[in-house]
């Protein structure tokens, strides 16, 4: 399931946040070789102290993390504005309560392959984007500013997610890092739903809902249940 956790729920999901920091270290430091701060096997930066909201993808028991992303409002300090200021044009510096920054998006391809072999990594990324769009719409977020490596453009495309590239910079990792605006509206979500076949995968009350009894969650197989997640909220 996909759900948001805010600082009110950090403690009860401490184990998921720990998994997230380790996953981010593996993905951004070890694999992509981004120049990012690392503490031991954790990847944390000062923006994690800003009480961000995290979009998490976990199993129904909320014990295994499959993916994560960090959300911060552009009215406050943001990673993209502060860290990328030197190399990006000033165009990245948007500021409005309905424009949010989504960074550190990553998935745990190994956990996904072992628990849900029918989902390939590209599909998994598409699902993250779908959940992100649904979660943003649910919270009146109009635009997401995100950074990504060039190959991610194909994934956005595959998910039917409208992405407008507004900047590109070298020197952060092996490949250039791009910055783009991701539009969120009912219209774009409809288009994404049509293209991906996923719908209603974001669970508004996920962080505080009691964990489901242990059983495998097969996406697509239990659509009625997934509709209820949204209906229940």
């Amino acid at each position, binding site marked *: 399931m996909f759900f948001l956790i805010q600082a009110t729920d950090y403690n009860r999901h401490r184990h998921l946040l720990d998994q997230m920091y380790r996953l981010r270290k593996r993905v951004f430091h070890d694999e992509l070789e981004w120049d990012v701060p690392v503490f031991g096997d954790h990847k944390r930066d000062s923006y994690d102290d800003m009480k961000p*909201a995290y979009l998490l993808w976990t199993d129904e028991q909320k014990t295994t993390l499959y993916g994560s992303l960090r959300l911060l409002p552009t009215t406050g300090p943001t990673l993209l504005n502060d860290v990328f200021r030197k190399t990006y*044009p000033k*165009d990245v510096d948007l500021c*409005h309560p309905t424009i949010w920054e989504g960074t550190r998006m990553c998935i745990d391809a190994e956990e996904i392959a072992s628990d849900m072999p029918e989902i390939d990594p590209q599909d998994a990324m598409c699902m993250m984007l779908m959940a992100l769009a649904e979660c943003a719409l649910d919270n009146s977020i*109009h*635009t997401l500013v995100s950074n990504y490596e060039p190959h991610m453009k194909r994934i956005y495309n595959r998910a039917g997610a409208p992405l407008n590239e507004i900047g590109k910079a070298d020197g952060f990792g092996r490949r250039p890092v791009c910055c783009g605006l991701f539009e969120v509206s009912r219209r774009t979500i409809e288009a994404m739903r049509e293209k991906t076949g996923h719908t209603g995968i974001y669970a508004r009350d996920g962080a505080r809902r009691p964990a489901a009894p242990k059983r495998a969650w097969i996406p697509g197989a239990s659509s009625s249940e997934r509709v209820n997640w949204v209906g229940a909220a």
Partner: protein
Amino acid sequence: MEDKNDLLKVAYEAVENSGDVQEAITRIRDLYGLHHCVFHLGQTHVDTLDRPFVKTTYPDAWVSRYLLKGYVTVDPVAREGFLRMLPFNWQDLEYGEEQAEMMRDAVQYDVGTSGYSIPVVDRQARRSLFSITSTLGGDEWKDFIEMNGPELQEVAHRVHRRALEEIFGEVDPMPPLGPREIECLTWTARGKEYTVIADILGLSGHTVRGYLKSARFKLECATLPQAVAKAVALKIITP
């Protein structure tokens, strides 16, 4: 659409022209037909205040009751409000026995039956919480928030800056406009719609709207014509 814009314009003016934050939130309450408004500036290590900065339109009887009963340590809105980043409905809060009792008490004291809070964070990482209450419930309340929520988020930021001004006598400038924001605003000044601007600049219409929203917000204006006028006056753009 025009009417909606006008409401935000009047709201900006109400905050701007009020003598203090107390008057500002009272006028916002009346303007949006709310039951009550509360503004609470968070303590940060950057700014230390002698006492908490809280302004409210609640009845005096409730404020006294709140202090007398020590609700400050119970209040789920205050507890969660400074931890959350996203706006929230009070019905989504976590209620223990004490919290439920306090909320029942609040209804008795005419606080309202529905509540919604907007966390504010600025570039200096200062936080505040702007809360509204209503006697609307169910779908009516849901519709009200869906329609006015994004606008009220802007209002919350206006009140936040107004409060900083009131406390410290001045407030740090908003972030400067970026090149794209300036371009989009310049074309707006020349009478182009956002779809036309999108064609001219090779951007999507949504991206242009995003830049214009951001430019307007940075210029602290409720409408685009006002933002254009201000940008011209500040010599940021030449139409």
